C-alpha cells in the first residue's frame, strides 16, 4: 500500500446524502474475478446522466470526493472502495460514514475524513463556483485546503498511522513474521499438510448425462 502524507487533486462536490454501496457500485459488477478495473462501475447508475458531476469536464479527473452525510451505507462489499480508488479517488470527505465502509477504506489506502456539515457546505460552494479547484489534503495535520479556506477533518489515530506508514492488514501482520516462524517451529508433526498430496487412487469419473 502506498504511503499517504499529503495529496493535492481536483475536488468533486457530490451533493447527495445516503449514498449507499449499491449506488457506489451496483451488484452486477460483483461477479468479476478482478479487484482492479472497476472505474467504469463507479456510480454506474448516474454515469449515463450528462449532468452528473463526474461527467462534467472540470471534475472528471477528480481525486478528492466531497460527499453528503451517511456515505457508504448498505452492504459490506469491499468493491465500493476498489471502485473509488480505481477511478482515481484518494480521499473522501463527508460529515458521516457508514462504519464498515470507513473500516474498508482505512484498510485499502483510501482516506475517509470526517468534516463538519458546515465545512462540507463551504467546500461545496468553493468547488461549485470554481469547478476544477484543487484540494490539498494533509493527513499529518488532518486538514483539507481549497482556495484560501482550510478545514479540519477527523480520522482516528490508528488508521492515520497505518495510512501514513502505508501498511495494509497483511503488511501489519508481516511485521510479526518472526513470531509466526517461531510458532511454526513448534507445530506438532501429526498436524496435517496438504503437500505432498495423498489420496486414494485416481479413478475415471463418468460424466452424468441429461435424462
Amino acid at each position, binding site marked *: 500500500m502506498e504511503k499517504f502524507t499529503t495529496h493535492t487533486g481536483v475536488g468533486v462536490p457530490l451533493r447527495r446524502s445516503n449514498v449507499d454501496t449499491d449506488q457506489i457500485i451496483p451488484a452486477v459488477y460483483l461477479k468479476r*474475478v478482478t*479487484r482492479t478495473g472497476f472505474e467504469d462501475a463507479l456510480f454506474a447508475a448516474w454515469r449515463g446522466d450528462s449532468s452528473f458531476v463526474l461527467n462534467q469536464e472540470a471534475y472528471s479527473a477528480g481525486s478528492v470526493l466531497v460527499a453528503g452525510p451517511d456515505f457508504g451505507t448498505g452492504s459490506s462489499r469491499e468493491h465500493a472502495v476498489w471502485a473509488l480508488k480505481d477511478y482515481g479517488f484518494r480521499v473522501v470527505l463527508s460529515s458521516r460514514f457508514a462504519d464498515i465502509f470507513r473500516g474498508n477504506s482505512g484498510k485499502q489506502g483510501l482516506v475517509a475524513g470526517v468534516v463538519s456539515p458546515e465545512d462540507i457546505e463551504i467546500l461545496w460552494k468553493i468547488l461549485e463556483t470554481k469547478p476544477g479547484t484543487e484540494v490539498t489534503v494533509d493527513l499529518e495535520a488532518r486538514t483539507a485546503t481549497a482556495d484560501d479556506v482550510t478545514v479540519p477533518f477527523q480520522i482516528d489515530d490508528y488508521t492515520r498511522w497505518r495510512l501514513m506508514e502505508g501498511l495494509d492488514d497483511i503488511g501489519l501482520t*508481516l511485521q*510479526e513474521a518472526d513470531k509466526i516462524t517461531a510458532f511454526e517451529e513448534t507445530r506438532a508433526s*501429526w498436524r496435517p499438510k*496438504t503437500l505432498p498430496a495423498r489420496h486414494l487412487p485416481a*479413478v475415471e469419473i463418468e*460424466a452424468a448425462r441429461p435424462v
Partner: protein
Amino acid sequence: MAGTLAEKVWEAHLVRRGEDGSPDLLYIDLHLVHEVTSPQAFEGLRLAGRQVRRPDLTIATEDHNTPTLDIDRPIADLTSRTQIDTLRANAKEFGVRLHSLGDADQGIVHQVGPQLGLTMPGLTVVCGDSHTSTHGAFGALAFGIGTSEVEHVLATQTLPLAPFKTMAITVNGALPAGATSKDIILAIIAKIGTGGGQGYVLEYRGEAIRALSMEARMTICNMSIEAGARAGMIAPDETTFEYLKGRPHAPEGADWDEAVEYWKTLRSDDDAQYDAEVVLEATDLEPFVTWGTNPGQGLPLSASVPVPADIADEGERETAAKALEYMGLTAGTPLRDIKVDTVFIGSCTNGRIEDLRSVAKVVKGKEKASDVRVLVVPSSARVRLQAEAEGLDVIFKEFGAEWRNAGCSMCLGMNPDQLAPGERSASTSNRNFEGRQGKGGRTHLVSPLVAAATAIRGTLSSVSDLDLPFDIDITTFDGTPLDGVGASPLGESVVVDLPIPVAGQPALR
C-alpha cells in the same frame, strides 16, 4: 484454568496475544479454497508481490459453479467458466493443490477436507465460505472468512481475531425413529433464532450428540451458521478417531498415537464457564421442516403453516406474512399437505454417503411420485464412486431420480441446477432464502429421510407415512457410524506428485 473446547483450541494457536484491545493473532492449520471467493485474494497477492506462505497447508477444489451434467464438456455459463479458469491459473501460479472437475477428489470443499483426512480435532480451519463450520464436528475450530481475510491467510497463514463467546447446546435423550441430526439442528435454530448464535461458538454435547455418527455430526455443525454463530464444535471421541483412521492424510504410527493422546484432552472441562447455555430433549423431536424463508422458520412436520394473525410480536408477524406470500402458502394448511415439484438431495449439509444410503434404503424398489423431479447430487466424486460401488445409483435411477456428478448444485443454483420461478422444493441443503435455489424458487429444508418420503408421496412426508417393510432399520443411519468413504474397497491411499509447481518457502518482506 478451566476452559471450554473452543478456548483450548484457540489458546493452542496463539501466535501473539492482543494487547490494549487489539486482536489476537491466530495460526491457521488448514485453509480450504474454492473458485468463488478466492480470485481477488490471489490477485491481491499478485498486486502486492506476495506469495502463498504455506501452500502445504492449503488445498483448493471446484464446487460452487461446477455443472453436474456433461462435466467433460466446456462449461456453458461464462461467469462460471471464468471463475473456474481463474482458480486453475491461480493454483498453478501459486503452487496450490487443486482438485479440478473430473478429478476423483473433486467435490464440495467441506466434504473434501474430511474425506481426505485433512480435517482433524484441534485444528484451526478456515475457508471463504460460511459453512466452514462443518469441520467443527471433529473438534476443530472452523469458520468462514471474507475475501480480504482469504488473502490475509494466504499471505501469512494467520488471522487477527477478537475472541468469540461460547454457548453450550446440550441435547439429551435418544432420537426417535425417523428423526435425524438434521431435525436436531433445525429444531435448535427454530428455538434460538437465526440471530441467536451471533458472536458465539456453539458447542454441541449430550447423549444424543455422542450417539451420532461423524457424518451426522457434520450436518449439525454445518448449520451452526444459520443460527448466526461463528462456528460449531463437538468434542472428539472414539467415533471421531474411528472415522479418521486410515484416511489418506490421517497421521500414522507414532504420530497417530501422539495425536490421539492430545485429541483426548480436547473436551470442555467440567467446571468450564460458557457465556450461554441451551438444552434440548431429543426424545421429543420429530422430523422438522421449514415453512418460511429463513432456516429459523421451521416446525415439526405434524404442524400446520402458522397463522400470522396469531403471532403476538409485530415484527415477527410481518416477517411471517411476507414469508408466506413469497412461499405461496395459505396460513393454517397442514405441512403434510404441501405439494412439491422438486426434491433435492445433496449439499455439504446432507450429500454424504450415509445420507445417500438412508435415502436409498427408503426408496429402494419404489417409484417416485410422477410429477416430482428428484435430483441426487453426491457431495464429492469419491462419494459418488462409493455409492456406485454399493449399487445405490441403480436404486436411485430405478426410482426415477437423476443421478448427478458432484458439487454444490441446487444448494445455491450457481450452476444450471435451479428452481424455476414459483417452483417448490424439498431440499436437504441449508438455506431457504428467497431466490437461493433459483429466482422465485420456494425451498423447504428437510432431512434426507423426509426428502425420500416426500419424493415417494409428492407432498411433505416422513418415513412414518410410508408402509416400509419392518426389517428396514432406518434409525441406524444416525445411530451408528456407517461411514465408508475413506477406508473403502477402492484401495490403499497413495502419495501423488501433483503436476503443479510447488513454490518453496517464500521470502518474507
